[in-house]
């Protein structure tokens, strides 16, 4: 166990979206545009690191029988604090990320990491775990939203809150609107999980040969 290995495991090997399959609801909802995917990823990473640190510090205080309500109180308070502080001090950023913040409370990656990791490990490792899982989540969202935004709208990197329409790749009339609707999300997610499994298995075979 090292800081580095706890950090890197969340990126691919134990990627929260593609491997552990947690946080599917925000994944479906926000992977429709790259700007949304990155925004949700950053906001969730921030809360994840914070809640992992606090829960790791409190791990000897919280009795195991009431741990879940305690985690939820910690996560919800942390999320609200982030929301208020952002609204007060960085209103521009809050305008863009604001709609994702309430979604973080119910993001089960955060509860999942609190339960599976932070409640059993030290503060430093929990920090590494939170950072890695958060970045893995951000990467997964960015990958999915690139595919969905491109096929669903024909543009890339649109940020409507800043009035930026994005780089046009092809005509909007040729785009498949289904890709930015829930079915497109499930199809993209399924195909990406399949691809990663296939690559993972091939890698294992190559290592054995």
């Amino acid at each position: 166990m090292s800081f580095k290995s706890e950090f890197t495991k969340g990126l691919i090997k134990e990627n929260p979206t593609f491997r552990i399959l947690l946080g599917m609801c925000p994944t479906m909802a926000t992977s429709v545009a790259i700007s949304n995917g990155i925004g949700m990823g950053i906001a969730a990473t921030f809360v994840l690191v914070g809640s992992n640190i606090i829960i790791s510090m409190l791990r000897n205080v919280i009795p195991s029988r009431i741990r879940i309500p305690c985690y939820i109180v910690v996560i919800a308070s942390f999320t609200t604090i982030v929301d208020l502080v952002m609204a007060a001090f960085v209103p521009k950023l809050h305008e863009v990320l604001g709609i994702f913040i309430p979604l973080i409370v119910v993001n089960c990656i955060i509860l999942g990491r609190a339960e599976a990791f932070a409640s059993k490990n030290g503060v430093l490792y929990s920090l590494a775990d939170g950072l890695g899982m958060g970045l893995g989540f951000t990467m997964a969202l960015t990958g999915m939203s690139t595919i969905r935004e491109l096929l669903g709208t024909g543009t890339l990197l649109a940020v409507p809150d800043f009035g930026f329409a994005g780089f046009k790749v092809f005509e909007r009339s040729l785009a498949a609107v289904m890709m930015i609707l829930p079915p497109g999300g499930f199809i993209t997610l399924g195909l990406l999980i399949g691809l990663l499994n296939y690559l993972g298995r091939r890698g294992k075979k190559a290592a054995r040969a």
Partner: protein
Amino acid sequence: MRDVWKLGFILFAICAVAAGALAFVNDITEERIAAQAAMKLEQALASVVPGADEFKDETDRVLAVAPPASRGGRPEFSAITKVYVGYKNGEMAGAAFACSPSGYGGPIDAVVGVSRDGVVTGLTVVKHSETPGLGANVTNRDFQMRFVGLRAGTPVKVTKDGGQVEAITGATISSRAVASGVDEALRLFELASREGVW
């Protein structure tokens, strides 16, 4: 049984600390957030009623002309939350209607500007919780400009309902909500003009 008290106390202590932390943060941020919201409203008003240099909240005076709700029915102009009258050098330049029609994911808070002669001069969405990528496009300048230039007198509807405004692809409900907000604003403007409010 003793366990219950002990566990309950620990949970209570954690909740109390969390509540204290939230109260503290709220105390520091409350004023700033209110100031930001006021500034945002000011900007929204100025952007929908160009030329006006002063806005007055005249909600009560204007909404007084609305007919009282019939028993059990939805009151008319129920989406209108505030009416601001914009003045330029003391003369009325136009009116800004803050409305909050129900969209797909909740209310869509928008401000509609109407000029002295009953033409929509601007529309801006202040707050919404529509689906990102679809309904969230109500914040697009492109979409909002479709309402500018509409006149009081004809109902505002999306093309699907036989109206004149093209809805956002895949977001008919959100577009319909914005259209109904603009429609109520224009109808209230017309009624207020007829009643001689301004």
